[in-house]
């Protein structure tokens, strides 16, 4: 699968989980960004992006996350990322953005 197929789960404590599926790259980053930003606007206090089913994320994917983070800061919604696969975790660490999304930096 080469596109992001988001699954949104509403949690009782106003936390929204977005589970992305597939690569997040030049072809899919805009769709991913739109999906996260839409979730930020639903009134949730916290949005969690679950990356457990994303095998690949490139710098365009990092940009999608950062763009969503800008929107989250503006809307005062907490935006975090969880469960990245090792290769994706390495990209987030290497680009030094992991801590911005609540992930360990090393």
């Amino acid at each position, binding site marked *: 699968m080469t596109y992001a197929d988001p699954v949104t789960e509403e949690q009782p404590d106003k936390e929204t989980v977005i589970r992305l599926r597939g690569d997040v790259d*030049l072809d899919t980053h805009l769709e991913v960004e739109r999906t996260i930003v839409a979730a930020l606007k639903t009134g949730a206090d916290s949005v969690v992006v679950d990356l457990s089913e994303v095998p690949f994320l*490139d*710098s*365009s994917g990092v940009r999608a996350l*950062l763009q969503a983070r*800008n929107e989250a800061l503006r809307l005062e919604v907490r935006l975090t990322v969880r469960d990245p696969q090792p290769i994706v975790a390495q990209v987030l660490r*290497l680009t*030094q*953005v992991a*801590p911005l999304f609540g992930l360990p930096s090393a």
Partner: protein
Amino acid sequence: MTVANAPDSWHTVLATLVEAGHRTGPAELGALVAEAVAPTGVQAVLYLVDYEQRALRPLPPVPGGPEPVDGSAAGEAFTIGRSVPGPPAWVPVVNGTERLGVLRVVPPPGADPYPVLAGCRLVAGMVGHLITAKTQYGDDLERVRRSAPMTPAAELLWRLLPPLTFANRQMVITAVLEPCYDVGGDAFDYAVDGDTVRLAIYDAVGKGMRAGLATAAALGAARAHRVADAGLTEIATAVDRVLADEFTDARFVTAVLADLSLADGRLRYVNAGHPPPVLFRAGQAVGTLDGGGRTPLGVLGGPTSLAETSFEPGDRLLLYTDGVTEARDHDGVQFGLDRLVALAESVADADLPAPETLRRLSHAVIDHQAGPPHDDATLVLLEWSEAAASRAVP
């Protein structure tokens, strides 16, 4: 003694190049070279290397057409940086240490070839300066160097970059960018100020013109502050500001900014979300520069801290963008850092000129790649070595 063996005759040739060169446009440069050497009985044709460094292309065109860089006598002169005796002989053409092309030289019948080659070496040195000076007055030299049209982003970017190779007596810096007609977001930069070498590699997120504009803004801000003697953290902050002000789409640029002191070997650097550079000592990779981490330029997230390490004479630093290591073959296998390091180590044994080392590494990445590249791939090599610096000169 034939005319070509008389030392005075080469003085006349150089004088012609200088005097007539004042009023010569880029289109006439090949003809000027041929005319200037004609009184010695030597026939000379100028060839320029194309952007991909795969062919040497004659100016003006000749019946035989271009010469391949790999597997020809012309290419040997270009790659090894030494004259190859003929006939025809081939003499490398450089501006300083920037490799531009070769001269095809046919001495007059019966002439001793060695004084001819010595004379042509001087001519090639002057021609290298002339090519660099004249290229900005017209498009003919650019046309010869291109085997394909440039994208607008590549056109913008190439004209912002410094020459691919520079050496002084102590060190050599060299770089290579691919895909050369379609680059956009990658860039490198350097300035050598006395004992300080200021080096940078940049990679803007995305592709094409938007990425190219972000890189251009980053280069502008970094250079303005560098010239004003700003330190590395100040330069990083200046680039943060210009990207945040000019781009509203989380457009960021990863970068390594480094200052090397040639006086004491102190290497200071900042790494803004970029793959860590690899340090080679005595030909072997001894580690990566893992300090100085911060968020990519344009992403505000805490202070910029400076890392410091000691560089020893003979050390080499290899900087690269992720387009190099993430190039994939038909099976999706990435080129990878291990392969890059192993290749760099094996090529080091050959004692090649630094730009040739990078040309071979870059072509290995392209050969690995299945289909057109997805990302820009840039390599920058800094060698702190008098021997390496002298290998960069023909």
